[in-house]
């Protein structure tokens, strides 16, 4: 067995959380720096993990670890990383690091807040690393709890408790269906005289023995969980409230990585596990994804609150990711994973920038902001770059992903691509509406109440944002830095998936 | 002859049971219960369960019922007439479901034994010694020792309970 690097990465934040709780009375400042340090180390570890995949030749899972947990259900503590999850793990640690960095000013019991963020990180990392279905499920649920507390306890509006609860219940309703599907899967695939297993790779070979109706039901149950998490169109009702009510660092994590867990689930347990069925259901899911794209974009167009606007834009963007996944070709899947990374950088950055803005203006309402560029040109420029990246300007990071996704979609069916580009046009519309209405436009006759801190960006903020912007440009110019790592893996998957599907 | 006695006792038992439920005064109910117990005891005798006949008389009639009467006089409840129950739904439910229960049980028994005579040893003849005190005693202290022992625990609990409840001011 290798060095348990993956476990170390998963549980290092948890360790930090326990440490934070257990430490005696220490100044909040030093605790903050401790948590920042902890997340930076975590980021370093994950980058180390990614480096082992950097040459882009490794396919399949590496760094595997396995501990028996509950044999009767085929459940193991089983983690392993392939080049796709390696990127997502790095993304998670990166976003968490930024989120941690930007959560210094948290009010009320900061120690717990930081601890919860670290626990949340553990949960998300576990989701990305689990290679056993029930183990995946465990981490999947572990994510909910810290998110619940973070939204409910430190949320920013009066609705936070309700939003948090709604978030939990929606997610749970979906994921419990998935649990049933997993359990059914464990027992339906037991070979004669064998033991049930939920090991992803073993299960994958066994699953072709099921008849297609059963597979369809199981797939739908899985899809329910993921569709809620992403979220896809009819399941999105929790999302705007949760994003808007969560404290900004948490929103960053929610939008940046937690929504990716749903997409990742579609990727790994949708099309990897059910190669044939996902082919059958691809039109359905693609349709939902397209509706999400358009719905999110149109809804974003009408929002008066920037945070909700970003929430809807996120809905639209995650729709693209799912569309790419269910294009079921290399371009689409590559693009989807690339877009997960890109969106995971851009959207948190937008939320963070929004937080910087609302700290200064005391509001996130568009109506209370106008013509701010002359006052804060740097922040305005940052907003501009992020908005452009988010609308998929060619040359910035999201373009490459959208290019591959829509290209893959075109390959699957030109209709998908044509509808999707309507989303792109709408994205330009709402992104620029957002940008212009805040930064341009006539001076407001009536200033918002709390605008005393109308300063431009400070060095510490620049220290956070400049690397992000550089990253956005870099990934826009050289997306093969990302795709090159998992290209071979995706090809491997899809080919074996086709083999399994055709062997049905 | 025996059949007639049986019939009379059965009718008596049922009637007294009805009496327990229908008598407005709790003392009368208790008396009806006594009647019921006695008729059942005689039925036991007819069924060749001599020991049970005695036990029924001693334990039920002698101990439990006395206790009941004692408490009834202690609390001295007012008379109560069930047909003036304010909860009509409850009353209707009780009667209808009681009848339903009876019908189901009777139906089940008739379905089971109505057509065919049960394949049991003839109880009217010399049934051997099954009801005798000796056989009973041997069974009780050998095969069924454990339940018997456990009743001591029941009684112990009842004893403690009596102490607890009695201590209460």
């Amino acid at each position, binding site marked *: 067995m290798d060095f348990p690097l993956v476990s170390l990465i998963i549980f290092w934040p948890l360790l930090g959380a326990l440490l934070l709780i257990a430490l005696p009375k220490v100044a909040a400042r030093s605790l903050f720096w401790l948590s920042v340090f902890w997340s930076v180390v975590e980021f370093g570890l994950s980058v180390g993990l990614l480096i082992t995949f950097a040459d882009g030749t490794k396919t399949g899972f590496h760094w595997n670890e396995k501990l028996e947990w509950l044999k009767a259900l085929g459940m193991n503590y089983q983690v392993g990383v392939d080049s796709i999850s390696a990127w997502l793990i790095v993304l998670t640690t990166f976003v968490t690091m930024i989120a941690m960095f930007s959560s210094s000013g948290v009010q009320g019991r900061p120690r717990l807040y930081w601890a919860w963020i670290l626990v949340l990180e553990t949960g998300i990392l576990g989701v990305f690393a689990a290679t056993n279905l029930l183990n995946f499920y465990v981490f999947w649920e572990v994510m909910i709890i810290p998110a619940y507390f973070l939204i409910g306890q430190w949320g920013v509006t009066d609705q936070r408790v309700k939003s948090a609860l709604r978030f939990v219940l929606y997610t749970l309703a979906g994921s419990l269906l998935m649990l049933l599907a997993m359990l059914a899967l464990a027992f339906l695939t037991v070979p004669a005289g064998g033991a049930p297993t939920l090991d992803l790779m073993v299960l994958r070979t066994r699953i072709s023995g099921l008849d297609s109706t059963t597979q369809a039901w199981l797939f739908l149950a899985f899809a329910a969980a993921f569709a809620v998490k992403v979220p896809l169109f009819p399941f999105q009702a929790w999302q705007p409230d949760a994003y808007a009510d969560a404290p900004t660092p948490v929103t960053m994590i929610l939008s940046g990585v937690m929504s990716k867990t749903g997409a990742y689930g579609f990727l790994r347990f949708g099309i990897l596990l059910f190669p044939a069925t996902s082919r059958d259901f691809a039109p359905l899911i693609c349709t939902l994804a397209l509706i999400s794209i358009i719905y999110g974009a149109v809804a974003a167009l009408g929002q008066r609150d920037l945070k909700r606007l970003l929430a809807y834009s996120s809905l639209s963007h995650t729709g693209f990711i799912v569309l790419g996944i269910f294009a079921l070709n290399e371009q689409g899947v590559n693009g989807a994973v690339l877009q997960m990374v890109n969106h995971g950088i851009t959207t948190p950055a937008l939320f963070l920038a929004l937080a910087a803005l609302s700290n200064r203006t005391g509001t996130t309402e568009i109506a209370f902001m106008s013509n701010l560029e002359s006052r804060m040109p740097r922040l305005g420029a940052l907003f501009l770059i992020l908005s452009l990246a988010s609308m998929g300007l060619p040359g910035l990071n999201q373009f490459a992903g959208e290019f591959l996704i829509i290209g893959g979609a075109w390959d699957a069916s030109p209709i998908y691509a044509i509808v999707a580009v309507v989303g792109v046009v709408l994205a330009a519309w709402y992104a620029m509406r957002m940008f212009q209405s805040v930064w341009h436009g006539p001076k407001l006759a009536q200033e918002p109440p709390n605008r005393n801190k109308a300063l431009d960006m400070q060095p510490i903020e620049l220290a956070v944002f400049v690397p992000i912007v550089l990253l956005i440009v870099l990934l826009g110019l050289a997306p093969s830095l990302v795709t090159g790592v998992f290209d071979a893996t995706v090809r491997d998957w899809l080919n074996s998936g086709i083999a399994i599907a055709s062997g049905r | 002859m025996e059949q007639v006695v049986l019939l009379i006792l059965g009718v008596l*038992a049922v009637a007294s049971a009805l009496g327990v439920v229908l008598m407005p005064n709790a003392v009368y109910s208790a008396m009806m219960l006594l009647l019921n117990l006695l008729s059942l005891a005689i039925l036991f005798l007819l*069924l060749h369960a001599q020991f049970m006949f005695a036990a029924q008389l001693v334990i*039920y009639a002698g101990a*439990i019922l006395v206790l009941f009467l004692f408490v009834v006089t202690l609390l001295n409840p*007012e008379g109560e007439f069930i047909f003036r129950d304010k909860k009509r739904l409850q009353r209707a439910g009780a009667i209808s479901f009681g009848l339903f*229960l009876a019908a189901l049980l009777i139906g089940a028994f008739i379905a089971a034994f109505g057509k065919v005579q049960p394949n049991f040893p003839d*109880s009217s003849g010399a049934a051997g010694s099954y*009801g005798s005190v000796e056989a009973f005693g041997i069974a009780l202290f050998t095969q069924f020792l454990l339940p018997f022992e456990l009743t001591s625990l029941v009684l112990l609990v009842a004893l403690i309970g009596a102490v607890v409840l009695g201590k209460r001011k």
Partner: protein
Amino acid sequence: MSQITFTLLVSAVIFSVGAAGVLLRRNPLVQFMSIELMLNAVNLALISFAGSMGTAEGQIFVLMVLTVAAAEAVVGLGIIVAMFRKRNRIDVDDIRSMDG
């Protein structure tokens, strides 16, 4: 109709009457008496079966029921007395401090 069938039917009727009695009466004592009726019906059924079987098992069961009934009477009446001693009306429908 055999003897046993008859006694079983009697027991069924008594049992049902007892069950209805618990539901009908508001006096806890009479309710308890109704439960005793039900237990008696059980005893009758047991004896009926036992008589046809020729083993002592049924009778021993009856003895257990009797013993337990006695114990229950002690405890139950104790509870009823403790409950109602200070009350004017002896009515279970007054016992309703918790609901919902």
